[in-house]
């Protein structure tokens, strides 16, 4: 950030919407995918336990 303020940092020279819109969607997608895989595992294990 080379000596600028946080406000300047988040503004990204006027491109904040584009830059943070990219980074945030990537992070949200990854979190959602992890959540999906973990919850799927819970469902499968619950089903398998019910069978035994």
């Amino acid at each position, binding site marked *: 950030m080379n000596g600028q303020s946080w406000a300047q940092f988040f503004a990204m020279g006027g491109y904040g*919407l584009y830059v943070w819109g*990219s980074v945030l969607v990537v992070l949200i997608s990854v979190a959602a995918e992890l959540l999906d895989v973990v919850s799927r595992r819970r469902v499968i294990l619950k089903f398998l336990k019910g069978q035994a």
Partner: protein
Amino acid sequence: MDTSSRDRIRAHARPFQWLWQYASPQRFYPVAGRLVPYCLASALLLVLVGLYVGFFVAPTDHQQGDAYRIIFVHVPAAWLSMLIYVVMAFWAGLGWVLNTRLSSMMARALAPTGALFTFLALWTGGLWGKPTWGAWWVWDARLTSDLILLFLYIGFMALQAATDDPRRGDKAGAVLALVGVVNVPIIYFSVQWWNTLHQGASISFKAAPTMGSTMLLGMLLCALGFWAYAIGVALMRLRNIVLEREGESDWVQGLPEVAVKKEPV
């Protein structure tokens, strides 16, 4: 015939015998489980350092201003979208030719992650295109072939989901995945073969990098981190698929996470 000589014959029939044991879902399931934390931890570390370098160390671009910083997520996502496809087609093909069901399960486990990264490459590309080209989307060769990649992933998953018999689905998926591989070099070389609005490759093996070294470092760290994440999440999904498909078998029923603990009377 005693067991040892039978083993010797088998070792002759199958080279890389030691590797074959991991083709068994039963053997690979715990191995995958042990690998996942290392993959996810290194992914987190690499992406954090990569984004730090990208956003706090790398300078502002003199042409594109700070808009170029989308590169730190766009290029890693785009690379992975192509790489995962090739790896998915490889495992699907291997599962078809060698009849190893774990390979086909690996292909299934990779598809959603590949589709996600293709979507992210298109999404971040749109957000980069708007300020630099003035358009969210153009029908140029790079963007169009990448959209086709997304449809290939979706087609692969839909085909698997629509086929009740898992092994038949694996084979059908393998045919689709292998035919679709031709699209990957088209995506990669599209910026050279056609006159596209999309800029040329960020990294070339022939020429010195045209980008600043801290920009390059941030991008490579994020790419490695995304890579580690993709391996980790695909292994997690592979374990789910193994449990779903082999749920009836004794070894799954005997797993500590499945077996119901008997309460002491």
